[in-house]
């Protein structure tokens, strides 16, 4: 089986009105090349589920988003994502705001084909008040009430990994794979971009298979894009680009997203994009963050 496609072919699987999940966390290992490809498409009315960073901000700014399911949208060192902020403050998107752990439970419920997972998370807070979809239920086993965190079933998930083979075996070598395994499992179609496409035999060496977090039947499509997480990080290959994110952040106050998109995305190929930020070598030299 060969699951390798171009980014354009891969993203063409995403249709108007779909629910998409995006892996990574804030400014860390986001499938940004796939997001840029999605920005170049005419898809709209998406529901986006993510531990959000510029992925969510850009999709909101480009008018692709109907609803965001989120616990935060942040660039970490720039705490407030500028375009998500704009979208919220102009009231142009619907939201379902949940706790970070509730999102994990929702993805697990979807992955396990169950309608909800009972949890204490969210009790007594406004996340329940503002999301009528979140039901509080009685337990058959005790006298407490519980939040029934609904399955967050995804039509498509987008994640970026360090290595993959053409059959969809995906390896994440950074220190954390975040919730990417659950994004892959919660989706009907999982699109994975990778830094490096390798032969299947690669994973037979040493402990390489230990950093493969889901089995290939959960991967639908593989796209090879070295540097594909940039400007977010892809540890241990490269860190997030502070200067680029600052420019992106500043564009919200001067010119708006069109200024940023015209310079970097609209009518450009990914190769054009990489050249405009100094080339793949420069991307791969972006220093790793120290926390």
């Amino acid at each position: 089986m060969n699951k390798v496609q171009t980014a354009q072919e891969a993203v063409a699987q995403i249709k108007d009105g779909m629910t998409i999940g995006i892996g990574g966390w804030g400014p860390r290992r986001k499938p940004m090349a796939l997001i840029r490809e999605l920005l170049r498409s005419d898809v709209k009315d998406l529901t986006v589920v993510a531990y959000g960073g510029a992925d969510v901000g850009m999709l909101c700014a480009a008018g692709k988003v109907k609803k965001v399911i989120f616990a935060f949208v942040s660039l970490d060192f720039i705490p407030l994502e500028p375009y998500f902020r704009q979208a919220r403050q102009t009231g142009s998107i619907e939201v379902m705001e949940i706790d970070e752990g509730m999102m994990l439970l929702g993805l697990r419920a979807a992955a396990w084909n169950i309608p909800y997972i009972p949890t204490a998370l969210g009790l007594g807070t406004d996340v329940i008040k503002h999301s009528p979809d979140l039901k509080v239920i009685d337990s058959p086993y005790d006298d407490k009430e519980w939040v029934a965190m609904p399955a967050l079933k995804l039509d498509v998930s987008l994640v970026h990994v360090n290595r993959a083979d053409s059959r969809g075996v995906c390896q994440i070598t950074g220190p954390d794979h975040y919730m990417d395994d659950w994004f892959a499992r919660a989706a009907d179609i999982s699109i994975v971009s990778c830094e490096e496409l390798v032969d299947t035999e690669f994973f037979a060496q040493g402990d390489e298979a230990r950093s493969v977090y889901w089995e290939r039947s959960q991967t639908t499509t593989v796209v090879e894009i070295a540097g594909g997480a940039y400007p977010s990080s892809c540890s241990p290959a490269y860190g997030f680009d502070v200067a680029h994110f600052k420019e992106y952040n500043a564009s919200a106050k001067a010119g708006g997203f069109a200024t940023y998109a015209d310079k970097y995305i609209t009518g450009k190929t990914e190769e054009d994009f990489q050249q405009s930020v100094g080339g793949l070598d420069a991307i791969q030299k972006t220093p790793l963050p120290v926390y």
Partner: protein
Amino acid sequence: MSATQDTVSAKDYSLAELMIVAGAEAFRNDGEVLATGIGMIPRLAASLAMKSFNPDLMMTDSEAFVLSEPNPVSGRSSHEGQKQETWMGFSRIFDNVWSGKRHAMVGPTQIDKYGQTNISALGGTYDQPKVQMLGARGFPGNSICHANSFFVPSHNTRVFMDGECDMVCSIGYNPERLPKGYTFDDIDIRLVITDLCVMDWNGPQNMLRVVSLHPGISLDQVLENTGFEIHAEADLPTTPAPTEEQLEILRQLDPKDWRSKQIKDNPKGDRS
């Protein structure tokens, strides 16, 4: 280090150092829990506690590992050589959170009289807030699962606001919102460390209560800068000054003195 140095109060210390030392006290009797300090001063507070009176604490590298010794907050160029003892990626952080074996010290934008907090959005309507902030992050889950303390770098009536938080992100001691089957004993809010004082939620009916006033700060200053009624007993103690030993540990944990940049103008700890 001489034995006497352990207990000798420093003469010269900053407000940031006073707040770190006061914050460390929040973790003193925690035993073996994950101590998470969000932001420089809370992180130094947890680190100081682990390096001195509670070595049983666990801390992470803020990325993906639990450490047997806290990382310095400054003066490092990589994560190489850190004392890691187990993997602790974000999904496993939630396993820890849900087990209850954690105490987080966090910095809310709003705190109301019930101990409910907000980091999500301010003003306007929920569908169109005036100011969108981070989102609820892990606050809902943290607050129902484990102990939490608050750090407030600027004690004022915008933080300690009248009424309920614009968006209630964490559960507090609000009888109207208490879930079925729960009592206030199930909610564990510990210390509040501000630039004026130390407080806890052990006043009548879990009312916010002043525990100690920072050197040179009057109770009136605290009351004027708090937007709701709080409890205070007569003859409040003064927040203890750092010891020389504690300041030495802080110099090791923060060799580049980033703590001096945390509070505007880096005021002295004693403002009398």
